[in-house]
């Protein structure tokens, strides 16, 4: 855990901000995020819909479309290289090659009019100077590697001819075809049945070990995060509100939002009439609340929370939280 801190991180985001200009004003979807992923590490990025986690992943590869743009002052470094300063050709050489991005819904992420084998071969040929035939059999190999039976025949199939689980495997094959060092997986299992989910996650684990790849697992599913990640970042309202080694986060959450998320998970042993939901709603990105952005929904909030925005405060042992309770734990209401 702390051993990896000595080497330079594989991915380093510093003060990343992404803004969208729309008719209702400027939406600060990502507002000053610091995040690191070390080589071979699995890191979780957790949050509700609309907290900015997907946009963060897009920003890494500069795939944010207008009217969104990455704000000045943001820093995205891959192995020390500033990705935001790269020209179009150079950033394309990174995409799919050194860093791969896997999206949520495999059916819409795949081109419906092209065969899956061709879509995988396309990535290989975009980054490596190989012959068509070579790219083709490597694509078939990748399909086999992700556990698709009868890979040779399946390579000629169209996406809609495959089941959901198989399509997700195809997406993985496409992403890993060039052996990237980092995989950004945005909700890789949300569209799938629970049993298939487990299979895909196992597969991801195995491939990661084989390739020595780092994974940023972006999800709202705390269960997956608990099982599969080493460290976790929790996002709310465009900011990281808590970060910690996974075990510590689940055992001793420091931020009321994380506490709320964990408390909301229904447990079999408990007998409750109502689910414990976090009161209120996520505010719109065009109007984040003043002070601590969580204060309208926080059971412990006091005047300081309304007035001053807390920075990430150290809670010890690699654990940080953006909450004044770290400094004034006695303000915590019982």
């Amino acid at each position, binding site marked *: 855990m702390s051993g990896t801190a000595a080497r330079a991180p594989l991915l380093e985001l510093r003060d990343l901000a992404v803004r969208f200009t729309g008719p209702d004003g400027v939406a600060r979807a990502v507002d000053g995020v610091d995040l690191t992923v070390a080589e071979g590490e699995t890191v979780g990025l957790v949050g509700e819909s609309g907290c900015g986690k997907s946009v963060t992943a897009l920003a890494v590869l500069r795939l944010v479309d207008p009217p969104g743009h990455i704000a000045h002052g943001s820093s995205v470094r891959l192995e020390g290289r500033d990705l935001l300063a790269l020209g179009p050709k150079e950033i394309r050489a990174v*995409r799919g090659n050194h860093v791969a991005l896997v999206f949520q819904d495999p059916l819409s992420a795949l*081109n419906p*009019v092209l065969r899956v084998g061709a879509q995988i071969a*396309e990535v290989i040929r975009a980054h490596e100077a190989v012959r068509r035939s070579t790219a083709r059999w490597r694509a078939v190999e990748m399909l086999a590697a992700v556990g698709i039976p009868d890979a040779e025949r399946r390579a000629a199939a*169209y996406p809609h001819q495959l089941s959901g689980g198989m399509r997700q495997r195809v997406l993985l094959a496409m992403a890993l075809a060039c052996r990237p060092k980092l995989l950004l997986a945005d909700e890789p299992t949300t569209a799938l049945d629970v049993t298939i989910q487990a299979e895909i996650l196992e597969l991801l684990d195995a491939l990661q070990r084989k390739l020595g790849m780092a994974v940023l697992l972006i999800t709202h599913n705390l269960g997956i995060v608990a099982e599969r990640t080493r460290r976790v970042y929790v996002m709310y309202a465009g900011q990281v509100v808590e970060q910690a080694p996974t075990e510590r986060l689940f055992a001793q959450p420091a931020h009321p939002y994380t506490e709320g998320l964990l408390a909301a998970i229904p447990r079999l042993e408990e007998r409750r009439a109502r689910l414990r939901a976090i009161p209120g709603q996520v505010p719109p990105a065009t109007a984040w609340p003043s002070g601590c952005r969580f204060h309208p929904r926080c059971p412990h909030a006091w005047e300081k929370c309304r007035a001053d925005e807390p920075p990430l405060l150290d809670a010890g042992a690699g654990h940080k939280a953006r909450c004044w309770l770290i400094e004034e734990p006695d303000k915590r209401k019982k």
Partner: protein
Amino acid sequence: MLGFVARRLGFAVVSVAAVVLITFLLVHAEPGAPMLGSPERTRASPETVARQRALFGLDRPLPEQLLRYAANLARGELGESFVLHRPVADVLAEAVPNTLLLGGTALVVSLLLGLVIGAAQAARHHSRTDTALGVLTLVLYSVPVFWLGLVLLLVFGERLHWLPVSGMTSAAIHDTLSPLGRALDVARHLVLPAASLALVQAAAFARFQRSALVDSLGAAHIRSARAKGLPERVVLWRHALRGALAPTITLAGLSVPYFLAGSVLVESIFGWPGLGRVTYDAIFARDYNVITAAALVAGVLVAIGNLLADVAVAIADPRVRLDR
């Protein structure tokens, strides 16, 4: 795939039959008799009208007329034109190819032009070029094709004398020219009428293609393609355009009725000797056989257009093939 085509073909036959049937009924339901024009305008006495109708077998019961027509049709016999005193088949054989030339050229030109403009707009979505082209296509789309024809005729034909204003050939010298010369002569006469038809329809295609491409470019798999590090050119052509091609092809196939309608208007302005002109004259002269035969040809052309559109879409989009 074969089954798909066979089904569409069967349907095409049914629709052509329906076209002929309905035209037949419409035509024979009209008062008056061939060559006498409308009852109000001619001063023919009822006896004359009755006699005229009997002469052409129009006093027989309708089902009998229909059967006779169908039987003749099966033999390839289209009847004779009452007005022109020639076999209908001959009249059509002369006129239809001219309309095919005019309409076909206009269709191809408008499709290409529309695709290019639409793609240019989509690639520069929301830029000044996009807006400017958008205004252009909107105006062209809103212009009546016959008025555009008149304006083009006025400007390029009469004022500037660049292009001929009437007919398909320069009658006086056409036969004296070499084959190449003759082709060029026809081509010169083709420019204005085809341009009138093509410009309006190109605007329609461009508007449609722009929206289809922008949709396509916004689709999730385009983002995926970019995330794979593919060059923008490949993303546009291989991924976005393929998806947007199918609806535009369908639109092209379905535009055949528009070109037929336009040809009626444009042919009369430019004196182009085609099916539109023939049909128009026949309707006013109550030349029943010609009208019905023209409807048949029109129905066939429309059916072919629809069929080709369906087949082309099935080729472009594999999801369609494997469905029913």
